[in-house]
């Protein structure tokens, strides 16, 4: 190898510093990506630079950021992995240099129409997986060197970190927003009944727990609580679909077993990889009886005046999303005046090193016949305390008042 002259060494050091510049960290991720593209364009003296990110669900690379090639992003260019220039880089997991840019080597017509003569691209890797491709192009024909490739790879590595952080942030924000929109903050007003609820995300952020309470045109009160396997945006999206489907089926039939059977059939067909536990209950308009169906979910706790709270003896049924055509047993539960019903997800029960049954016992000890807000506070205080829960927690209390309200006391109540 020939000796590298000091001027070159100094220039190279400057190039590397420009890419690894600590000041870049002060930019937000999107700005950082744009700045990296500008800098690499300047250092390598190329005309275009672009980032395409892998969309895991479709297996396509999607143009996400570009310099000198903005139309690629604006037109939403998509390249299947394994095809064309960028697709080859992602599939082969290694740099590719092109000395000829035309329809035989490059899939995206924008690139050849622009008159790009030479291209070089490298994979963006995070956690050992390709997450995208960074490529540069020159309008003049040129020979990219090994040093050029190394610099571009260095840029891609830094860009990959920014992209990962951007994706995680977007996922967190979107799932939290979706969760907020799905979990009702205001519960319906129903004569003779009081309700209160809590939702607390776990340490890992928003998970797949949700609850829903709504009335039917015929006056019944419907209660849903569930837990979708998974977390983040993917779980929140499935949760949203299950919630809408349940509301639609609730309008079609009063039989909770039939509602859950329809939900299961819908999920198995449209979301075959989803798995969830769901409790669905229909409380009569007079609020004196509940029909409950469990799809792999924990039974509610019931507290009656003057008696210790206990688990409702409801027949278990299979989780949603396992196998079709199973029986969905429905249990009828009498709700005397003053009774409190407590619906919850397993996040409430789990404590490291403790058995589920211990959690259930503690829950039954703390639930008592009292107004639901106080009951929620007591349960959260006793079972969650000040430690952030590992998993998310949903809790819903429904209290049948001991004495009926005088007529006209509750706004919006439908004559029960």
């Amino acid at each position: 190898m020939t000796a590298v002259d000091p001027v070159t060494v100094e220039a190279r050091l400057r190039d590397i510093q420009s890419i690894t510049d600590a000041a870049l960290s002060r930019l937000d991720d999107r700005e950082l990506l744009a700045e990296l593209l500008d800098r690499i364009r300047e250092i390598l003296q190329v005309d275009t630079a672009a980032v395409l990110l892998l969309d895991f669900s479709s297996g396509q690379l999607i143009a996400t950021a570009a310099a000198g090639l903005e139309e690629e992003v604006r037109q939403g260019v998509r390249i299947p992995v394994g095809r064309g220039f960028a697709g080859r880089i992602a599939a082969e997991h290694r740099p590719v240099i092109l000395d000829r840019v035309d329809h035989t080597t490059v899939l995206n017509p924008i690139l050849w129409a622009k008159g790009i003569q030479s291209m070089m691209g490298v994979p963006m890797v995070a956690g050992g997986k390709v997450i995208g491709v960074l490529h540069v192009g020159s309008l003049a024909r040129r020979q990219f060197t090994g040093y050029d490739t190394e610099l571009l790879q260095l840029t891609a590595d830094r860009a990959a970190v920014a992209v990962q952080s951007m994706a995680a942030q977007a996922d967190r924000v979107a799932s939290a927003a979706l969760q907020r929109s799905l979990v009702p903050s205001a519960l319906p007003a129903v004569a003779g009944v009081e309700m209160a609820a809590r939702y607390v995300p776990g340490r890992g952020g928003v998970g797949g727990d949700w609850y829903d309470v709504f009335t039917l045109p015929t006056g019944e009160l419907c209660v849903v609580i569930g837990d979708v396997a998974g977390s983040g945006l993917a779980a929140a999206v499935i949760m949203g679909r299950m919630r809408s489907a349940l509301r639609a089926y609730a309008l079609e039939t009063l039989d909770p077993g039939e509602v859950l059977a329809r939900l299961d059939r819908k999920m198995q067909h449209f979301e075959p990889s989803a798995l969830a536990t769901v409790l669905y209950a229909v409380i009569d308009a007079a609020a004196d009886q509940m029909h409950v169906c469990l799809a792999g979910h924990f039974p509610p706790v019931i507290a009656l005046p003057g008696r210790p709270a206990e688990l409702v003896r409801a027949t278990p049924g299979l989780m949603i999303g396992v196998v079709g055509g199973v029986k969905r047993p429905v249990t009828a539960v009498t709700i005397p005046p003053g009774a409190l019903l407590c619906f919850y997800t397993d996040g409430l029960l789990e404590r490291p090193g403790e058995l589920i049954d211990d959690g259930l016992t503690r829950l039954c000890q703390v639930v008592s016949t009292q107004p639901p807000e106080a009951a929620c506070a007591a349960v959260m205080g006793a079972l969650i305390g000040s430690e952030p829960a590992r998993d998310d927690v949903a809790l819903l209390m429904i209290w049948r008042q001991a004495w009926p309200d005088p007529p006209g006391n509750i706004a919006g109540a439908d004559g029960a």
Partner: protein
Amino acid sequence: MPDAMFPVEIVSGVPVVATPEEIDITNAGGLRAALLESAAHGSGRLVVDMSRTRFCDTAGLHALVSAHKRALADGGEVRLVISGAAVQRIFTITGLNHVIPNFTSLQEALGQTSVS
């Protein structure tokens, strides 16, 4: 790469995945990977030994149900070893005890007779 939390052992030609005390969202990915790897052994049958496990949340159940469905589609079978009351309780509540064949000991799970 095998996950130290989910060791896989081949017993009489059948892959046996042993699960830790707790399976939740933080390690369910490891279980999923261990199950996929074991299924790739191609013997058709796969045993998940849950005798040490005391807690399993929906993320853990998801990994087991996916492996069960995959095995059925490939003409194979996933068998579980459940000896503790806590896991038995979770499988009863979720109804999975009627769906995924389960046994109280590893010897039984490795036996030839299929119990459903």
